[in-house]
């Protein structure tokens, strides 16, 4: 069961890291929350364009 013990140790280490806020410089976006907001904004723009396309040709 050596593998299980190693796995538990790894998981504990991962737990310690994941509960701490991650401070990371993200290329292009700055931070991950900002990246996610931008992606959602782009998705919103795509839906708006598709809706405009629908209305224009219907």
């Amino acid at each position: 069961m050596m593998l299980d013990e190693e796995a538990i140790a790894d998981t504990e280490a991962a737990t310690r890291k994941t509960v701490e806020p991650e401070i990371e410089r993200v290329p292009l976006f700055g931070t991950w929350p900002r990246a996610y907001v931008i992606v959602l904004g782009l998705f919103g723009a795509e839906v708006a364009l598709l809706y405009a396309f629908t209305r224009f040709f219907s």
Partner: protein
Amino acid sequence: MNWIDYLVLLAALLAIPIYGIWKTRHSDSLGDYLKGDSNIRWATIGLSVMATQAGPITFLSMPGQAYENGIAFVQNYFGQPFALLVVCAVFIPIFHRMKVFTAYEYLGQRFDTKTRLLGAFLFLIQRGLAAGITIYAPAIIISALLGWRLSLTVCLAGGLVVVYTMLGGTRIVSLTQQYQMGVIFSGMAIAFAMAIYRLPDDLSIPQALAVAGKMGKLDAVDFSFDFSKRYTFWSGALGGFFLALAYFGADQSQVQRYLAGESATSSRFGLILNAVMKVPMQFAILLVGATVFLFYQFEKPPLVFNQPAAELAQERGYGTQLDHFEKAFEASFTAKKAGIGVLTRAMAGGDQGAIAAATAEVRRLDAEGQTIRADARKILVQADPNLKSKDSDYVFLTFVIRYLPHGVVGLLIAVIFSAALSATAATLNALASTTTVDFYRPLIRPAAPDAHYVFVSRILTAVWGLFAIGVALFANIVENLIEAGNILGSLFYGSLLGLFVVAFFLRHVRGSAVFAAAVISQVAVLVLFKTTSIGYLWYNVIGCAGVAFLSLVFQATIFRDGASPTPTATAPVTA
């Protein structure tokens, strides 16, 4: 097809795997074989994820879907960007930090071995069957239209993908997928341009699109809360969210693609590329189908696109009935073509009353033509009760074979096969990885050298490949190719996703409670599938919610003794 088409087809299909085999000839460590040594760039990750999801059904069935029902199907992908962001924020940081080879390895560390094996088993059963559909789907259509033997087509396509995936592992899958996506994008762009080019000279592109719009084929977004409608913004965003979350978060064929990233940042960028590009990509593919629809408003389409089935019906004595429908369809088409002429002149004149009247008449004639085609298809089923594929699946390739020049035909056939190869390669790679890492290594031989596990992974790739080919050759495949994969996935994804949702968000729940909850939820979903007609996307929600709810109940009652928070519980990261 002539020799130019065969040359293009063979070059496109063989050159990419041969190049991949040469580039990955030194993949001999387990990390390299299963995770590409975690040094694959974000753009490759993004294309690899896209190729794994697309598959041949996307390029075969979706243009036909647009031809028959318009482009509203694009809304089914509206949940995907949200799901991908959840995977980026919650799943990827944990998987990367724990350096897991498979998603189910995490379940073993968070819960226990039996829960890990259950997750891996649910994945294997679902993906193993789906791999068969991925090989079968292009083979049944292409072999019928080109007169090839179905079994030979299945064996050649399946054999090719087994050989190169076995040799190169994850690295060759990612490498070949990016070039195969290049073939796919260029082929679809050429098909779109050719369909536009073949429209009547006196019709501009905006006028042509306006005609398709008036006929209801360009309604992409519908915000109404009408539950009787098959595709709306809300059903796509909500139902599609759970399906996509399960697929990208808990399906090893996708997890393995983004775990090959050189860092968590690369993996996230790869998924973000998909979050941004998926909807435009599906829209473009559907638009190709809408353009083919437009083309067939001016050029008479066949009564049925599945010509081999029509010929069989003729041979079996249904020729008189088909001739009757053919005459009625031709008369309807001629009237509709004249009606479209009236509509375009009315639109040019700007008279709203005339436009409305002409639109109503064209729609009536279009519906009449569709009814005649539907009746003709019933004859085909009477002639061959085993007829399994939908006529709309033959629309796109019929257009390609009949109207596109030599060379382009070969390229478009290569597009379909490239999509099949790239999706199947990722699936076989994930099936072999999961069997090796989650079953063979912990249960059979725990401490062998890397070279041994690489050898076992290669053997298992071949075994799963043969299983998929067997499913493609012998299974009684379902009628609707476009939805077969999603239905199969939805039956198992809900419970699988539930395991991960509980792992991430219900920190006090432990292994036995979640295991029992997942088994019961899975059985319940299968019973519901057999006994009710609930829309398949709902099985994702039911399975996931069932696991979460029952695990809470079991943890608070039957398994209360072990209710303290696990030391290994991993909280989600939202950074």
